[in-house]
């Protein structure tokens, strides 16, 4: 055995002796990377992501007005009850003026609940005072018996008065949301006010968490239908011929939404062409961008300009909807009413809820409601 071989064997032996030490160091490194000084770990973000996903795909949702007013969210997944109190760890994050969600930070909840079941707890912070309290780690939550947190099933269109609160809490069992019953305190200051670092500043975990957040905030359970006309888009001479044209125009207006893993610009859910063909816009379960405060309603736009003031002679397209358009609209509304159990009074013209002429005085709205009323028989039939 020459000197070179001996040296090589010695090196191998040293490496073998060092292996357990290296493995221990590596494990220690991994643990250190996923664990923040406050004791939270990436598992919390993962659990929060799963809780958000469950709630986003559940049968009941939080009304659009509440979600739009939300400044921060606290997610405490799988809150278990001890003897007298409940404790749980989760994450919180806030969004800025440009609607971008900031990095999540670890928080804890301590309080009590009346139910014995394990639940996911969601706290939506609705005003600046609430945000300050959350960020400084001293947000208190308590259910108000007189005004429970609204849900689409109970309060489809909450008013500004309904959402004028510091926070609202919701609970979910298996993704089924209900108004929150928990009472207690959220502790854990945000990185802006304490030395605690954000959880997963970058990486796949954070991307999944943000995607789940967007999924919850951009999804709707439609509670009504808003009827529009397209009129003539600015810089055009005739009404749009398809959803592509509307999509391009709405892109320029910044009506962007990320929903179900895709980017959409077209503000409506459906477009009805002059020959009665129905073109799909954004998916039905994605929040619309067609009527402020009513974007949990489905937006259907009929191609044409039916206002006698704006289009007196028909130079801007159809002056009233064609028979084919009305037939398609009736059929579509009937299907949507059946699918989402939409009551008659939740089918509105854009002008009923906003300061606009849309869909114009020549749009036959009362006859449409009359036809849909008759067709409620179809709703009954399909429900049986």
């Amino acid at each position, binding site marked *: 055995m020459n000197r070179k071989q001996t040296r090589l064997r010695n090196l191998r032996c040293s490496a073998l002796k060092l292996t357990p030490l290296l493995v221990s160091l590596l494990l220690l490194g991994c643990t250190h990377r996923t664990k923040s000084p406050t004791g939270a770990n990436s598992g919390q973000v993962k659990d929060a992501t799963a809780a958000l996903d469950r709630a986003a795909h559940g049968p009941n949702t939080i009304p659009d007005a509440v979600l739009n007013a939300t400044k921060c969210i606290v997610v405490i997944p799988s809150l278990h009850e001890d003897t007298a109190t409940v404790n749980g760890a989760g994450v919180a994050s806030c969004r800025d003026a440009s609607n971008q969600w900031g990095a999540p930070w670890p928080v804890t909840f301590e309080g009590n609940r009346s139910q014995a079941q394990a639940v996911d707890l969601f706290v939506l912070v609705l005003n600046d005072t609430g945000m300050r309290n959350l960020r400084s780690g001293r947000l208190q939550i308590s259910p108000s018996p007189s005004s429970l947190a609204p849900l689409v099933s109970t309060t489809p269109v909450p*008013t500004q008065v309904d959402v004028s609160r510091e926070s609202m809490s919701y609970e979910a069992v298996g993704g089924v949301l209900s108004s929150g019953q928990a009472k207690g305190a959220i502790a854990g200051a945000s990185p802006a006010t304490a030395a605690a670092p954000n959880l997963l500043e970058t990486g796949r975990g954070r991307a999944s968490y943000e995607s789940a957040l967007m999924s919850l905030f951009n999804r709707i359970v439609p509670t009504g239908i808003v009827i529009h006309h397209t009129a003539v888009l600015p810089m055009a001479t005739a009404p749009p011929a398809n959803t592509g044209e509307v999509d391009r125009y709405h892109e320029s207006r910044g009506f962007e939404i990320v929903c179900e893993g895709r980017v959409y610009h077209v503000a409506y859910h459906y477009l009805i062409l002059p020959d009665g063909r129905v073109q799909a816009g954004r998916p039905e379960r994605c929040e619309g961008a067609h009527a402020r405060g009513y974007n949990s309603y489905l937006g259907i736009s009929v191609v044409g300009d039916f206002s006698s003031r704006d289009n007196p002679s028909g130079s801007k397209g159809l002056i009233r909807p064609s028979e084919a358009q009305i037939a398609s609209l009736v059929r579509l509304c009937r299907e949507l009413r059946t699918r989402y159990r939409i009551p008659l009074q939740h089918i509105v013209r854009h002008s009923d809820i*906003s300061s606009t002429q849309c869909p114009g005085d020549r749009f036959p709205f*009362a006859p449409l409601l009359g036809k849909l009323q008759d067709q409620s028989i179809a709703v009954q039939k399909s429900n049986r």
Partner: protein
Amino acid sequence: MRWKVILNSVLLTTLFLSPLAGQKRSAPHSAGTASRLEPFRSFAILDAKLSLLTSQQASLEASLNGRAPESGASTPAQSRAKLLNSMRVTSAEIRRLTAHLQSRYARQHRAFGVKILKLLRARANAVHRDIYVLQRAHTESSARVADERLGKGIVALVLQFQAVSGGYATTQCAAQEWTCCEPKRTKDLMPGVQAACRWTCLPHSNKCTGLLGPRIPRSPR
């Protein structure tokens, strides 16, 4: 010595009378809170009642077409009678709510509020009357005519409800501002409605010429 007697009596008065005072205060306070949320609170109830009425009407249509007998009813006639009774109860509740709203704005001497709610109440009365006529119809043909009339009446009620309540959820007022449904100009009215308004925000309640709504709270509830 004398000051001790005075102090004791003050303490006793505070101890014994304060819970009573608290009770006295709390009752009108809760009523006041509900009142302060008007007409939004009534709109939410009306909305639920209209959902119920239109669904009852759908069942009635099915029954008239001999398709869906009401559960527990042995014959189509019994089923229809049962449904019409339920519809009458619902329409009576709608009438009561609209009357309550109208009298509220009459007390406040708000002419436009009275006018628009009077229209809503008239539509509710018409529906209630049409249900009664349908209940009294003895022949199939008279029932058909009454049913058609009821259908139109419900659409008119829905349109008027939308004209007064539409957009009340869209206001984005600053704290302490008042919500107000300002009358729409005649040329902006859509066919099918005689009066309509648009919900907006105002700094003072006396600036509101239409239907005055709740004031946005300053501090979080």
